[in-house]
């Protein structure tokens, strides 16, 4: 199949990113629920079954532990499995593998084995799917040393990070944001590879640094647009990965702006922004001219109704307000 070019959706980029790696490496195999003939519940694996067939793309029972556990066993024995967990909330159903097995086996065997696998999952809210299908759970994975974590915000980053994730000798949890699936952007050039752990300054600015990830990148960029005419120049840093965490880029930006806002979709309590904030409050303390602020999800489950959900998750207004208050501090 030919590589996608031109403008594509984030959704198409997922299948494209996987397909490119499956073409170059026959040890890459996919498994998950409804990912085969059905093309995935979010249509993020469309075309893979047709192109690569049933020996490379496997439909599974509703057995999250077996899916991820089998992927682990296969990864330890010469394959590069790409396992799909349909919604990131369901990572809880196979959490033992993500928390206790996959990230620890190399270490606890003194480096005897490696686990080159990818666990892909649809993450985040904003679609009215309610408390058990809307969570941003990247912070769950962030509590576990030994997992690499990618969470792209654009189609070309999906392709570039997917390449790195699948080629990685280390396990990678790959968060695809449900709210971004329909978003569009330029397709990535052939062999587009973005190293894990490189943040991107997606909008330069001198006044306030806004650190964002996945869904909060477009939210933060939109807020920056709103603030520009007000004379507030926002620098938006897209972390792109949580592990490795590119604090160098964040600290350099704060050294310039002296003001930091972190925008997360996961809840404030235990959110990844706490760790980012604590590093800046330590290593970047002398840069700061204002408090470090976080716009994160409220500490409640995700409600179903749109108007309620908007109250809970980050929005352009909330980000713009927070930046304004920091700018005048």
């Amino acid at each position: 199949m030919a590589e996608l070019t031109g403008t594509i959706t984030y959704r198409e980029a997922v299948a494209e990113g996987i397909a490119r790696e499956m073409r170059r490496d026959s040890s890459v195999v996919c498994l998950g629920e409804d990912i085969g003939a059905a093309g995935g519940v979010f249509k993020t694996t469309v075309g893979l079954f047709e192109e690569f067939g049933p020996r490379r793309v496997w439909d599974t029972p509703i057995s999250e532990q077996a899916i991820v556990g089998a992927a682990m066993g296969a990864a330890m024995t010469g394959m590069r499995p790409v396992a799909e967990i349909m919604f990131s909330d369901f990572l809880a159903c196979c959490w033992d593998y993500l928390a206790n097995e996959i990230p620890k086996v190399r270490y606890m065997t003194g480096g005897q084995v490696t686990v080159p696998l990818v666990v892909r999952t649809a993450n985040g809210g904003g679609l009215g799917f309610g408390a058990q299908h809307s969570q941003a759970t990247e912070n769950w994975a962030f509590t576990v040393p030994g997992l690499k974590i990618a969470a792209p915000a654009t189609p070309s980053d999906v392709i570039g990070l997917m390449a790195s994730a699948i080629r990685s000798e280390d396990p990678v949890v790959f968060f695809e944001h449900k709210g971004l699936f329909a978003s569009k952007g330029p397709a990535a050039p052939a062999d587009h590879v973005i190293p894990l752990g490189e943040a991107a300054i997606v909008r330069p600015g001198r006044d306030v640094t806004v650190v964002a990830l996945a869904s909060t990148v477009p939210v933060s960029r939109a807020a920056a647009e709103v603030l520009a005419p007000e004379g507030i120049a926002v620098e938006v840093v897209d972390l792109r990965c949580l592990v490795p965490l590119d604090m160098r880029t964040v600290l350099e930006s704060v050294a310039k702006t002296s003001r930091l806002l972190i925008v997360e979709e996961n809840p404030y309590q235990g959110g990844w922004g706490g760790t980012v904030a604590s590093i800046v409050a330590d290593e970047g303390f002398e840069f700061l001219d204002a408090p470090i602020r976080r716009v994160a999800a409220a500490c409640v489950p995700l409600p179903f109704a749109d108007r309620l959900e908007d109250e809970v998750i980050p929005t352009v207004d909330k980000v713009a307000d927070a930046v304004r208050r920091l700018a005048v501090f």
Partner: protein
Amino acid sequence: MDTTTREPVHAGPAAELLDLYQQLLVIRRTEKAAHDLFLAGLVKGTTHLAAGQEAVAVGAAAALRPDDYVFATYRGHHHAIARGATPEECLAELMSKATGVCKAKGGSMHLTKASHNMLGSYAIVGAHLPMAAGAAWSAQLRGSGQVAVAFFGDGATNIGAFHEALNLAAVWKLPVIFVCENNLYMEYTPIASVTAVKDPAAGRAPAYGIPAEIIDGNDVLTVWDAMRAAVERARNGNGPTVIEARTYRHYGHSRTDPGKYRPEAEVREWMARDPLTVARAHLRRLGLSDAAVEQAEAAAERIVAEAIDAAKQAPEADPAEAFTDVWADGGAAWRS
């Protein structure tokens, strides 16, 4: 395999049956309304409709005491209504209205009517089976004589929680009934393609020493009978039962899924065995007058039409509700 197959019974009091028939109709029309309202953009998020599976809910509810516990899945509208939630409060929930049965905080996947011991609809496959075992354990400890029922899909039989729940229920001889609504498919994939045994629930029951039954889930009287027997076993302290009810969904898996992955012949065959058709045949056999049947149909039509209107009229959910009901005190404060 310790599995019996029950012939559709041909007895059953006509008046009661007419009442069950009306309930089937109310659910069917409510599901139709949910479908149309979703297409009209008045229902957000997602829906998983149970049209075609109504007989499982209505037949089972008929065999239960008001204080028995019911746990359902995201495909749970039929169970909520069969256990006393009104079409109005259910549709209002789907439409994000303040009058929703869960204050528009749950949505279609989480319909709950705790005042009737319908203790929730859960959207993580299999998760509620241990909960139902726990409610049964609680009933056993309190000596209340209550039973608990978990309704789940065929796909749930391959997840770990199913295994752990059935083993615990058997070892503790809990008054719990595990009702599998086997509609042949998970989301878009046939259960047969990912399951090691032919009957995903009944075929596993012997691994826990639990008696199992495979029944026609489209015949409300058959479901009623099978449940009556299982409930009696449970109340008498004889432990859990597995019921695998063969049924079929009339809509796709969720939202706008047209269900194209299902062979036409299969769909046609099942549509011919629509639970409404089956129930009507029973009514005819029992000699109910067409007038009586039409009356029930008219009543159901009126109930749901009024429910749709009322739900449309109801006020939107109050955004402030986003910050209530985390804790028992009603609040959401996580800092002190």
